[in-house]
């Protein structure tokens, strides 16, 4: 097992190199970083532009340029943002922390309620409860977040204020303007709406996964064996049913968490939530190459990492899978 993990980690190095190389080409072709720099800094001297090209590895030759960028990236010589020469790492770190917080909250809430709903639906397939949960899940999946977000903002901020004098949940940011320091209560209040929006999608999807996975398991022969032992329905469901039904769901969950790091673009934009999504939108809009490349590295790394976690969890849950 340990050897497998080490080998996978070793393999992720060439994967990272290849993917970042492709991303490097795509950004250079798609955004033309040198032009963006000149546009943002119209009075930059020739020497300044050359310095920008050197530190970012923006040579005319893509291969040479890429390795130059790689060397500077690894040695920590990160170029500052094209706008105002801000340092990249603090901005990226904050964005990661904010997205991880939102993503974790939404994933925990979403997967928990999604699994409960899926189990309740699968216990009596075709019953009223099943139909209700299924219909809600389809509604939840079909309403895009930019619509549900606006509806919730209207309800909890605009109308709430009209009815009760003040809004229940704020509609943007992580803290009120001017706030400094850490305040858990404020943070929860500000995170509530975006968390709900993301969680609705997760609940809807996972109730579907869990329902079909558990139904599959419920009809299997070993469930009949379990029933023929005369053990309680509760034990049959948890020890024999859930234990097997969770195997594919946990695997999908691990993959989903990996992609959520960069996948909250719409929600973060609507709520002006300063996470990875908003970071990407802003820097991509300005063609800010120094901000974009590290973002891409983080996204690729998180996807590779959670793919590995998915495989490990699969082997851990299912004794038939042995990682060699």
């Amino acid at each position: 097992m340990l050897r497998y993990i080490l080998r996978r980690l070793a393999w992720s190095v060439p994967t990272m190199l290849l993917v970042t190389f492709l991303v490097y080409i795509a950004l250079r072709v798609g955004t033309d970083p040198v032009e963006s720099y000149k546009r943002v800094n119209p009075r930059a001297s020739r020497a300044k532009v050359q310095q920008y090209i050197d530190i970012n590895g923006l040579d005319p030759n893509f291969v040479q340029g890429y390795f130059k960028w790689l060397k500077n990236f690894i040695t920590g010589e990160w170029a500052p943002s094209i706008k105002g020469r801000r340092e990249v790492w603090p901005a990226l770190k904050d964005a990661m922390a904010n997205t991880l917080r939102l993503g974790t909250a939404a994933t925990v809430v979403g997967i928990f309620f999604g699994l409960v709903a899926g189990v309740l639906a699968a216990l009596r397939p075709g019953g009223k409860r099943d139909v209700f949960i299924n219909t809600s899940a389809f509604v939840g999946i079909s309403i895009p977040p930019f619509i549900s977000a606006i509806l919730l903002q209207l309800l909890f901020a605009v109308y709430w204020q009209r009815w009760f004098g003040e809004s229940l949940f704020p509609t943007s940011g992580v803290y009120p303007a001017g706030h400094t320091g850490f305040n858990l209560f404020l943070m929860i209040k500000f995170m509530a709406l975006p968390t709900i929006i993301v969680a609705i999608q997760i609940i809807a999807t996972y109730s579907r996964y869990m329902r079909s996975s558990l139904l599959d398991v419920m009809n299997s022969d070993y469930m009949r064996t379990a029933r023929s032992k005369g053990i309680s329905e509760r034990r049959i469901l948890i020890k024999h049913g859930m234990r097997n039904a969770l195997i594919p769901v946990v695997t999908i969950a691990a993959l989903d968490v990996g992609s959520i790091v960069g996948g909250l673009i719409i929600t973060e934009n609507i709520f002006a939530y300063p996470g990875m999504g908003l970071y990407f939108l802003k820097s991509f809009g300005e063609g800010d190459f120094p901000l974009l490349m590290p973002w891409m590295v983080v996204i690729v790394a998180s996807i590779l990492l959670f793919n590995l976690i998915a495989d490990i969890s699969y082997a851990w849950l299912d004794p038939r899978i042995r990682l060699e």
Partner: protein
Amino acid sequence: MTEKVLEIRDLRVTFDTPSGPLEAVRGIDLDVEAGELLGVVGESGSGKSVSFLATMGLLPARARVTGSVLLAGEQLIGASNKFMRSVRGRLISMIFQDPLSALNPVHRIGDQISEMLQSHQSLSSRDAAKRAIELLDIVGIPQPDDRARQYPHEFSGGMRQRVIIAIAIANNPKVLIADEPTTALDVTVQAQILEVIERVQDRFGTAVVLITHDLGVIARVADRVNVMYAGRNVEQGTINDLFDHPSHPYTRGLLASLPRPGKQRLKPITGFPPNMVNPPSGCAFHPRCEFAADICKFEMPSLVSYGDLQTACVRARELPKHERFV
């Protein structure tokens, strides 16, 4: 006369299907005596499995079950779920057809046996684990203490069936129902599994109901045989009587269709099994019966003693003597 451990009277099972109610079992009477091995034979859809799933209370809720099933004097039809749970695995247990899928893939073999023990006896986990290893030894699994820690996928089909037998006999039940236990296995493994079942029957005095479509299996191990067709018993008797001079035309057809050395051609029963949504009137076998008369279309026969056998055929007395095939 020995003690009857299982008495089934007028058992009927009906399923609601889109094309109307389907009566899969249409009034079965059957006794199982303590310690005997009763074979139940019939083709697919004859209701043999459904009858015993109904006895175990393992049919889906949409199945309607009526009649009477007495297990060691206790009525099982209409009993509460709680009571049925206390009966299943303790007084009566079941072995299923496909050993490859009947064990939970994610739990260790030893734990799956212990679970059966602990759900009906107050045993510590340690004692249950020890007993599980003994049971694996009884059903003939080598190195049982190592094997108990393994998972089902590390066992062959025959070995898995032995494990399932170990689970089924864990609480020393009065009746063991074996539903086609050898159908999914190689012929050589089949013989071993039958031996294990016979050994269990001898050692613990368990009554065994062996459900199969394979007369060869029945001939090898059964004391008595019950032949089913279209959800009814058509003939029952001891193994020797039934094989020597079967009375019912269906039983005769089954025996004639067995392959034997020196026999040039098999003689199949013509026609197809009946559609149970709309079964034939009278004797359900009459459309396929070479001796059918008009009366067979109207009268549904019940089991009547005929010689040493009990036969459900109104023409049993008039039929030509069965010629023992060579």
